[in-house]
């Protein structure tokens, strides 16, 4: 039967409408961290690898704004340079997993036959492996460094995107507007890539933004246990690991700063991701 009731006009909120103060601050934090990292070679006060044994474990001061580590290296400079590796990893993982996940999700969601079912099971299987475990396996196979964990994490995060994309496509496929495209004689690749895919991007983008935070924390953890970025390259996770000795000696700052930045960035990214998905939810309902 039919309901002669009209849904409320969707879309009173627009993308351009004001962000919440929370989201603004999150955006500001994320932007600041990215800018400081990208422009580290210009902005950093010291060479991050310059060892100054006369000035070890110095507290914050005019010379070293955030202090120095056990080798007398400037912590601020190391944080800024560390951001380059620490942010690069998650960026590659998120882009890779989003692209792969979207494609696989589209295929899985669109094919009504065995292909969709098989892909769905493969996603489930991948879900069963924690991303960190996959990364450690990859390191065991290909050696330490940044490349192996990035590859492994990309694969590990594909199902998060693919599963979401798949379910969205299944819902979208049965919507009248998609059926109208079919009846109008538009070819399937055009409909799927040209029309359905763009409608998924906001939702998937929100999920990927959230993933960024998780990947950042995972990669930092890998570096912390010594499997990720290798010394002397600066990296937030590695910095925490290097500061363990100093920490036991009562010097908390060298470990505190990188930990703080990791937390700040993860929280900021989460807030942005939540805001995005809230907005999309509000827009589509």
């Amino acid at each position, binding site marked *: *039967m039919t309901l002669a009731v009209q849904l409320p006009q969707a879309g009173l909120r627009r993308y351009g409408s004001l962000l919440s103060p929370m989201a603004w601050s999150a955006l500001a934090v994320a932007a600041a961290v990215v800018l400081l990292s990208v422009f580290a070679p210009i902005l950093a006060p010291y060479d991050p690898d310059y060892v100054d044994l006369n000035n070890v474990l110095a507290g914050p001061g005019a010379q070293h704004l955030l202090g120095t580590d056990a080798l007398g290296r400037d912590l601020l400079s190391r944080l800024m340079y560390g951001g380059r590796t620490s942010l690069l990893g998650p960026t590659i993982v998120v882009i890779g997993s989003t692209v792969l996940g979207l494609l696989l999700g589209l295929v899985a969601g669109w094919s009504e036959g065995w292909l969709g079912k098989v892909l769905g099971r493969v996603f489930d299987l991948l879900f069963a492996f924690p991303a960190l475990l996959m990364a450690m396996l990859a390191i065991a196979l290909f050696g330490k460094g940044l490349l192996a964990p990035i590859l492994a994490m990309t694969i590990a995060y594909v199902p998060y995107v693919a599963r979401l994309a798949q379910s969205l496509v299944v819902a979208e496929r049965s*919507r009248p507007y998609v059926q109208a495209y079919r009846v109008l004689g538009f070819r399937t690749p055009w409909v799927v890539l040209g029309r359905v895919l763009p409608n998924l991007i906001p939702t998937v983008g929100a999920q990927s933004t959230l993933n960024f935070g998780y990947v950042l924390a995972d990669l930092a953890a890998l570096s912390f246990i010594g499997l990720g970025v290798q010394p002397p390259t600066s990296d937030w996770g590695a910095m925490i690991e290097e500061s363990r000795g100093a920490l036991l000696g009562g010097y908390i700052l060298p470990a505190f700063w990188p930990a703080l930045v990791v937390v700040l960035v993860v929280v900021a990214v989460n807030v942005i991701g939540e805001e995005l998905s809230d907005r999309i939810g509000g827009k589509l309902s």
Partner: protein
Amino acid sequence: MTQLLTIEDFTLGFRDRPPLLDSVSLHVNDGEAVALVGESGSGKSLTTRAALGLFPGGSEFSGTVAVQGLDTLTASKQRLMELRRGHASMIFQDPRAGINPVRTVGDFLTETLLRFDGLSRAEATERAVKQLEQVGLRRAKELMDQHPHQLSGGMLQRVMIAAALLNSPDLLLCDEPTTALDVTTQAGIVKLLREEQQSRGMGMLFITHDLNLAASLCERVYVLRRGRVVEQGGTQNVFLTPQQDYTRQLVEATPVIDVAGLEAPAAAGVPLLEVAGLSKTYQLPRGDVITALDNAAFTLPEGGSLGVVGESGSGKSTLARLVVALETATEGELTLRGVPRPRRALKASERKVLAKDVQIVFQDPYLSLDPRIPVGNAVADVFRLHQRQGRKQAKVSAAELLGRVGIGPERFDARPRALSGGQRQRVALAKALAARPRLLVLDEATSALDVSVQAQVLELVEELREQLGLTILFVTHDLAVVSRLCSQILVMHQGGIVEQGPTARILEDPGDEYTRNLIASRPRPLWDAEPVTA
């Protein structure tokens, strides 16, 4: 006679916005059935909810809303609870939304009796069973142990009515309680409500968008438009001799079966669509087979108009989807323009050829258009695909066609969400017509629209049909809408065709029992209803 519900100068709105309700005044007396009619967004539900002390969050209001002297605008929570529990009940449109799906009907009905009325479980059960029987549900005892999903929509709405009547309320508020139901089911519910209201001497406020329904149930009526009462009075007076332009429009737009106005069907021309022995079955995972369409056969001549009428589950939508090749038949022949349809999924090239023969417009104006694509481009895309037009030429063609369906050039770049329901259906129509099909399938294409908008869209379809020589297959539940547009009717019931023929013949002299029932179930005004036979 005392006033049960008194609403005076009730204004409700949000800060800095025009009010949603503007000085609404209405009253319901003891033992009186009053209708509140209006189109979507007119404020019917807001008004009624206010009677129970339910207001949208953050809204500001003024005036008086009183039930039996209790002002719900100022009453304490405690008093409002007492009011809702004992004096005023409400029945909503969607019965499934109002009941916990994991608890039984019995749990639902006895909950308040146990918690607030201090009845023992046995007493509460007895009273609930009695109430279920009273609302016309058989085997009430077994029903008590069933879950909502085991009941049909009509049965569940009876359960909701039983729940509303449990505490013998003085005032019953009904918010479109039959809108989600089939006509034949609706007829039973309306009869039940009328009987209960009369025998209990309850006051009833019945909200509906359907004037016919209001006329079949209520002595007095208020017509609401954009938050204002534009007309009120005895139902018969208001509907037969409306004083206000808006009421007049509403009355005129309300579809009625008008056999006299029908043109005789043209002599059968060349068959465009021939269907023989067409069946569609679905295999369920556990081995059950569902027959959605059973052995359908009919012929639709070029330039003809066929209405496919049936209730939910009759197979009418399956038929429509088979015709446009969104489904593949399990058995039987479907021939369009002399070309037999293969019984397999179509190839891309076949689909493109078929698209020039048949197009479809769906029911839901909010889901029928791609939310991201400006409507002009949506139509232009079809011109580019089918008429091989360049980007510029396609835009010109699209603007021209949109103009023809009543969408001006200023809307060319609008996204669907910026358009009203009626405008969206016009765009959907333009999109379908851009492929220049011969056969246009309308799958409940006007059912989700307000009556006045529906009337305009129907008029447009009629106009386009004449101008373009279209053949129409109109799938709908509404006999009156079909009688307006189609010269032939096909009545479906439970997957099969029970009757087909010229519209006038079917409506005046139905040969089938089910068709007769369908016609008799249409709401009839109180003033010319036959005496109610119990």
